[in-house]
């Protein structure tokens, strides 16, 4: 199996699914985290505590809830999404979005709150102010991106439960590792694990070099 067409297909699907889940998490987490960090409204602390709890959501619990929701007899069963890559993306987004949201909120809360007033006092619109605060917090925000991606590329429980580990359709690197281990094919499982580690390392290396270039400037 090693380095045949199937493994490339599994690898590409893993990257596609996790990258899409991370991008959707960013689209949710950046604005939501900014709103939580910069807003001044009732229930803000409660919402932050929910998000922080969400950062430690067990993937199997997420998998279970998504599976029940997308199951043929479930509330969204008519969409026929169970055991599809979209189901994995949904589950991974639910895992990753709180991580990105929570770390975005923490990154923005660490900035001197007077900077908001200073930017507004120089005539910034709300949008211009938030953009510049993101720019100031770009290093921890990149860390949020890395943590979000890391939480899903390495996740197995939810992908297995909602994807079904179907060969050629929903099999990703982590579920393939579980399958090979179950079959006693430890060499294949080890090879897939090494591949997963190398991919994760290369992506984080790229992001870290961007982050450190920013830090050294």
């Amino acid at each position, binding site marked *: 199996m090693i380095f045949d067409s199937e493994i490339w297909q599994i690898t590409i699907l893993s990257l596609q699914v996790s990258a899409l889940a991370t991008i959707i998490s960013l689209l949710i987490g950046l604005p939501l985290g900014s709103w939580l960090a910069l807003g001044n409204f009732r229930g803000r602390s409660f919402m932050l505590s929910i998000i922080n709890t969400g950062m430690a959501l067990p993937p199997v619990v997420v998998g279970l809830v998504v599976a029940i929701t997308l199951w043929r007899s479930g509330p969204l069963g008519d969409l026929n999404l169970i055991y599809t890559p979209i189901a994995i993306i949904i589950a991974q987004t639910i895992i990753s979005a709180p991580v990105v949201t929570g770390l975005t909120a923490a990154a923005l809360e660490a900035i*001197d709150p007077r*900077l908001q*007033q200073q930017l507004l*006092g*120089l*005539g910034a619109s709300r949008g211009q102010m938030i953009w510049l605060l993101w720019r100031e917090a770009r290093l921890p925000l990149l860390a949020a991106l890395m943590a979000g991606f890391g939480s899903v590329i390495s996740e197995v429980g939810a992908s297995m439960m909602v994807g079904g580990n179907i060969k050629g359709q929903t099999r990703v690197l982590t579920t393939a590792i579980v399958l090979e281990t179950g079959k006693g094919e430890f060499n294949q499982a080890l090879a897939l694990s090494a591949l997963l580690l190398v991919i994760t390392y290369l992506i984080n290396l790229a992001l870290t070099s961007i982050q450190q270039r920013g830090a050294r*400037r």
Partner: protein
Amino acid sequence: MSALIQIRDLVMRRGKRTVLAIDSFEILRGERLTVIGPNGSGKSTFLLALAHLLNPASGEILFEGKSLTHWDELKYRRKISFVFQDPLLLDMTVEQNVGLGLKFRGVEKDEAQARIMKWLKQLGIESLAKRRAGQLSGGEAQRVSLARAFVLEPELVLLDEPFSSLDPPTRAKLLDDLSALLAEDHRTAIFVTHNLKEATQLGSRVAVVMEGKLRQVGTIRQIKAKPADETVAVFLKELTN
């Protein structure tokens, strides 16, 4: 001189606590007003209210005869600029920091660059244009902060104890430079301090704020000669000592 700012029955609260209450006050166009008072007296709240960064609990502030609540918030804030106690520079070069407000206002690149260079020169920091904010000394950073405010050529400049975190020689030099700049510029400026020397040097009129109330307004000579009451007299004496 006509009134640029009029204050009517202004009450500012933090939670349930009243931190500032001013019945009636006017600031004239082109005036240099210094606000003095002890720590926690409501001076900074006064500036934040004037900048429309804090909303009054009651009463109103009128700018050019129109209540701030009727001004488009962004349009109003683009007529003023604010200098805080700390420079609060962004992690970018000096010229990018100075040009921030111009960028917010969509000023064309060539014009923005010319104005940035003019004000960097005016504040004696043109050699620092390409340096990153993190590499500046406290005095240099505060000069950048002043250039960033003045480059906007605002109708009103609000300065909240901009020199209080600087060492005495740097402070004296910057005070001289700002004083000369304001004398030449004829811009309306409100300067908050609890330093009598700064108040004397910078303000044509001085307002004493104590415990959230405007206790006395006049030239420093008038206030010293005839303090409104015992607490103002004691406060001035403490400052002089």
